[in-house]
């Protein structure tokens, strides 16, 4: 096993550990912090896969902004004591985990891996490449997504104003 494989599997083990902690920790703030750790490790995976731009954006958007808002809500509502687990919930989660695991493993074993998985050019994963794709080929979906976000912001402000 070369160094890259060792790093990959140790990171993967960490990621699975952190993700399990998100689900199984009783304290909501602890779960949120475990989720931050998991998102951070995913960002490291993006960097290893030669996409540092996506990795950095992952930290910036998910770990740095969205999770802070999660924590905000948890703290304001003081949701520290989680409610007891329900059995129906657990069995539902178990069944869906098994189904998802089955589908994923079926997909992984069915498809042939690409002959040369790292066909990385100089520009691969660079901001230039990303911008060229985003603003030429996908400019319409990009703009629609930004309008969608704007609608969501305006909607949130309207709802907040009506309450007061």
């Amino acid at each position, binding site marked *: 096993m070369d160094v890259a494989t060792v790093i990959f599997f140790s990171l993967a083990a960490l990621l699975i550990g952190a993700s399990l902690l998100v689900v199984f920790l009783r*304290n909501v*703030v*602890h779960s949120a*912090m475990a989720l*931050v750790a998991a998102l951070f490790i995913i960002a490291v995976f993006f960097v290893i896969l030669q996409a*540092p*731009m996506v990795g*950095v*954006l992952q*930290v*910036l958007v998910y*770990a*740095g*902004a969205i999770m*802070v808002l999660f*924590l*905000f809500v948890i*703290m*304001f509502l003081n949701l520290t004591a989680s409610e007891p687990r329900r059995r129906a919930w657990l069995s539902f989660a178990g069944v869906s985990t098994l189904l998802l695991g089955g589908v994923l493993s079926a997909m992984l074993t069915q498809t042939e891996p690409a002959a040369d998985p790292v066909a990385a050019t100089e520009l691969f994963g*660079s*901001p230039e490449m990303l911008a060229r794709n985003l603003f030429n080929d996908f400019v319409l979906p990009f703009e629609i997504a930004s309008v969608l976000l704007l609608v969501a912001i305006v909607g949130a402000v309207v709802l907040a104003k009506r309450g007061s």
Partner: protein
Amino acid sequence: MIVDFAIIAAKAFIVLFMVLNLAGILGWIERKGSALIQDRIGANRASIFGFAGLGLVNTLIADPLKFLTKEDFIPPAGDKFLHTLAPCMALFPALVIFAVIPFGDVLQIGDRLINLQVANLNVGILYVFAMASLGVYGIVIGAWASNNKFSLLGGVRGSAQMISYEIAMGLSVIGILMVYGTLDLQEIARGQGTLIRELLPQGLSFLGGLVGWLPAWGVFLQPLAFLLFFTAAVAETKRIPFDLPEGESELVAGYHVEYSGGKFLMFFAGEFAEIVTAAALVTTLFFGGWQVPYLMRDGFYFPWGGQWLLPHLAVVGLQVGAFTLKVLFFCWLQILLRWSVPRFRYDQVMRLGWKMLLPLALVNVLITALMIVAAQ
């Protein structure tokens, strides 16, 4: 392979060593500087064998020893694990941001070229913002884990303030990215090595005699962006006039009210490390980074004619020295600011961030875009 690894390790060690020690010395500058401003003597009591050294002994040796030997109090109703983790998370971002800040151009030893930057990322500036955005956790988690109303209020204030000013900070940098056309901090520093004369479009060449001799530093090309960025950076360090998260008169000490001993020292050191980081970022983005005006790779070339050739090591030494001096200047400026202006009210902080800095940053982006299109 081994040599490459050793070079990276050495660069990382040197940068961390400089930042942490500078943070310590800034503690002394803050105490003596505030004493100077307020017409006091300042720290002068501790001495080693009769040597008091202008109070330097206090802040560099006596204070840390005192912090480390004090009782480490954890609130019984608080969260032990997160209470311990929070100071580490507060110190972490300010230190790792330095990985992408270039402190010199390329150093050549024999055949080996050493880029004077710990990690050369092509998304350097985004990395800076990603790591800075993690700085919120130290405050929020520390505040929550203390299980104290004052600290929780401080933490909520701190996180709201940091998120608000991150947006203004990010938008103010966009102008710089448009002018130099890269996200790589080393390339931004290199881009500031030319003269404004060479960047002027045809229609504006009559300005060449007036400002053409200036180096193409960010502050000359993007003066508004510099003011916005510096204001937002000071707000991110949570110091006066933006120290509402601590606000002694209302919140006792805000998010670190339940911290003592070594953990408080980490918050304290984190604040000074943030000052150094902010100074280094302002230097790199707006004041040429390691550039010395008119210094090229092999010596000075003055715009009014004449040149002065220098050996390679002298050029690199001048660059690293210039970077250090600029960083020290902005550290000092932040400390001067902290002891010169009063604290804002919280609504004023929010209004400044959202209603002044954010629209101005957007206007700056728009004007920059129009100028670039007009110049083409």
